[in-house]
């Protein structure tokens, strides 16, 4: 009999574990947590690599140059924003996209706030988007370049640089013949709600709270999306944001692609505003890696997307946000053209794709831009840490079983004492013992069932909480309106 299948040995192991149960639990939990944090140490995790052969990242020289005077355009756009502090210059953007020669459309949508916050009024919104059709291929696939429009009175930093860059890129891209997918240039408003409205309209999904009108101009299936949040002026470095809704992440290949092209153009790139440490194996480097890792997990745990890109993940569209960070009086700041070349490199790589991103990881934790911790690496320490809960449950079951057994054994002994002297009734004794064993089994089953019953309430309560949070807002809205 093997080590684990031999019942005697099994019993011994179970007894040993039960004896040191509490100590074991503490040990497991601590070692799980420590093991998890240790994964951020560079020698223990892997360097990022490209899994998708078709990408051919960074092989082509980027030749983007701005044919329009981006600075002049940016100041013009800023003036448009300044005209009305609460509105966004949609017409201006629409006209410029039209002028460049793209198929430009405006999508209307209205927002219905739940819980009656807006007192029954529907708030209108408009997205502007232009489609650059690929000349030599059918419009079966598309990639999206998007940036949110932010009115002057918004709390978030402005994105005028991004809008101007998009126009310049649209003009440059239009002259190229090597596109195999359509490129959709999307400028959305109302932050994430506007983008959600566009996506819902594009994929023909009806929702109760965001009501998009039909999306008139359409391309094919969207393969990837890049969201820009670039302010006006010279950028010092880029911050990449990947966390999506409910903590969903884009394919690691897309993240690696953006990092590689940025490095190729000599632009610093950070993740959660942390740069890669100089010496990853030193204590400082390790602390920085752990900080980045925990910040990423914290951001994922919140469940809200860290940028507009997060809304794409639900549709199996890989998306990241490139946020340009300015620093006053920095010598290393670079102009928008460099960003243009980075975007050109990214889009040329995306152009080479034949299938959706599927080769690389979807579940990972990043301690930096050059290393990754895949789910295969972080699951074991995590499993060890939560083994505590399973152990405790097992312990409860064992305790119940033991009690019942002791009780039945006592009864058995009493019975034996009573009937042991009669030889005629030895047969009866055997029969009784058999009955007892059957009863013991029943009792054990009851004990086991009891163990299950003991955790049933927990499961039921969690389920009910889930159902309530999902349907709650609807109910509350209904009740509020009736009252």
């Amino acid at each position: 009999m093997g080590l684990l299948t031999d019942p005697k040995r099994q019993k011994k192991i179970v007894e040993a574990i039960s004896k040191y149960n509490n100590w074991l639990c503490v040990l497991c939990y601590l070692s799980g947590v420590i093991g998890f944090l240790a994964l951020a140490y560079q020698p223990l995790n892997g360097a990022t690599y490209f899994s998708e052969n078709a990408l051919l990242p960074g092989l082509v020289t980027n030749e983007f140059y701005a044919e329009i005077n981006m600075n002049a355009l940016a100041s013009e756009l800023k003036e448009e924003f300044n005209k009305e502090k609460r509105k966004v210059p949609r017409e201006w953007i629409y006209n410029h996209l039209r002028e460049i020669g793209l198929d430009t459309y405006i999508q209307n949508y209205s927002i219905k706030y739940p819980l009656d916050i807006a007192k029954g009024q529907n708030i209108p919104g408009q997205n502007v988007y232009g489609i650059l059709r690929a000349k030599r291929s059918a419009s079966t696939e598309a990639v999206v370049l998007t940036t949110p429009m932010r009115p002057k009175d918004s709390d978030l930093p402005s994105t005028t640089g991004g809008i101007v860059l998009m126009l310049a890129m649209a003009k440059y891209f239009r002259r190229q013949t090597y596109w195999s997918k359509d490129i959709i240039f999307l400028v959305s408003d109302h932050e994430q709600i506007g983008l959600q409205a566009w996506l819902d309209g594009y994929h023909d999904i009806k929702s109760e709270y965001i009501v998009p009108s039909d999306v008139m101009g359409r391309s094919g299936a969207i393969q990837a999306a890049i969201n820009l949040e670039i302010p006006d002026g010279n950028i010092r470095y880029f911050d990449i944001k990947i966390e999506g809704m409910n903590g969903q992440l884009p394919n690691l290949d897309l993240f690696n692609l953006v990092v590689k092209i940025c490095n190729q153009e000599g632009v610093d790139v950070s993740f959660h505003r942390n740069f890669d440490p100089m010496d990853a194996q030193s204590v400082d480097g390790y602390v920085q890696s752990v900080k980045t890792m925990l910040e990423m997990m914290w951001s994922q745990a919140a469940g809200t997307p860290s940028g507009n890109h997060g809304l794409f993940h639900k549709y199996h569209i890989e998306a990241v946000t490139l946020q340009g960070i300015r620093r006053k009086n920095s010598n290393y700041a670079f102009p928008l053209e460099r960003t243009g070349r980075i975007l050109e490199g990214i889009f040329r790589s995306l152009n080479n794709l034949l299938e959706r991103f599927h080769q690389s990881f979807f579940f990972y934790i990043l301690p930096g831009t050059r290393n990754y911790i895949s789910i295969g690496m972080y699951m074991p320490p995590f499993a060890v840490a939560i083994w505590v809960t399973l152990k405790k449950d097992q312990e409860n079951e064992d305790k119940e079983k033991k009690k019942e057994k002791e009780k039945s054994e006592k009864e058995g002994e009493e019975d034996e004492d009573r009937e042991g002297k009669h030889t005629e009734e030895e047969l009866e004794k055997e029969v009784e013992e058999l009955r007892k064993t059957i009863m013991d089994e029943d009792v054990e089953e009851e004990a086991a069932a009891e163990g299950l019953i003991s955790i049933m309430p927990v499961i039921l309560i969690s389920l009910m909480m889930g159902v309530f949070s999902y349907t709650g807002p609807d109910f509350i809205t209904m009740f509020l309106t009736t009252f």
Partner: protein
Amino acid sequence: MAAPMVNFYFQLIAFAFLHQCTGTSPEEFFKSGHTNNWAVLVDTSRFWFNYRHVANVLSIYRSCKRLGIPDSRIILMVADDMACNPRNPRPATVFNNANNQINVYGDDVEVDYRGYEVTVENFIRVLTGRLPPSTPRSKRLLSDEHSNVLVYMTGHGGDGFLKFQDAEEISNVELADAFEQMWQKRRYHEVFFMIDTCQAESMFQKFYSPNILAVASSKVGEDSLSHHVDPSIGVYVIDRYTYYALEFLETVTPGSKKTMGQFLEVCPKYQCISTVAKRTDLFRRDVNKVLLTDFFGSVRNVELLPDSIHLQNATLHTHSEDSSDVKSDKPLSYAQQFPMPV
């Protein structure tokens, strides 16, 4: 009337002319034993990132054509269309070198099997000749027992297989059996098998038919590497072995005396990084005495008559005989257009 005489003199002059050009003895002309050359050039890879495989096969195609094999004797199988791929920034061109910018696609390329027609089944049918009757002549390998056939294959391979079109594979056993069928059907005189893939040696390890000379770009367990990137197109444009093979072939002219032995030594390890493997045991002749143009070119041999032949003025006789035959009642008929190879 004087046709045979003119023929004889012409041949004599031609012989003398050739003798002037090459400066060798007549005995060497007929050592090879073949009378015609064929080439079967196969690229098995699809997709834009396999641009270099198409460039490989088209470069070999250009070399073969330059050295004299006509399109009617070349079966070119290209699995994907790189020239018209929307990702190609130079439409209708395929380049094999970032600097020299030779357009190997050109406007006179004749691709016999294109796109999805390049399958394992079609390849083996071409080699063995078992094609449906409706197959056009340009898609058939109409070789006979005096044909020297050059077979070049490129794509992605592994230990014992070559990947076709990202969907199927041909194994080395199948390939060996196909060559054996060719031998038994007397469909070749000699075969030169050239393969540029990863672990290419495995593809010729199972050959067992005579008169096959084989060379591969890498040994089992090694990868064949690509040579360089063209940064304006954004892809790798050629593989190492084919690049150095082409460098060698560029020095070859139709009358060149370079030998197969020299060709087999092309691309040593420091250049190719992978080890070039070759198989000469099945080949009856000594490779150092075999001309490169026996396989890559199509040199027309000239029939040499060392003794003078006294030709009678036989034309008058034949005329009168023919005229008498015309009156016979044997009906005339057309010759069979497409003689089916058995």
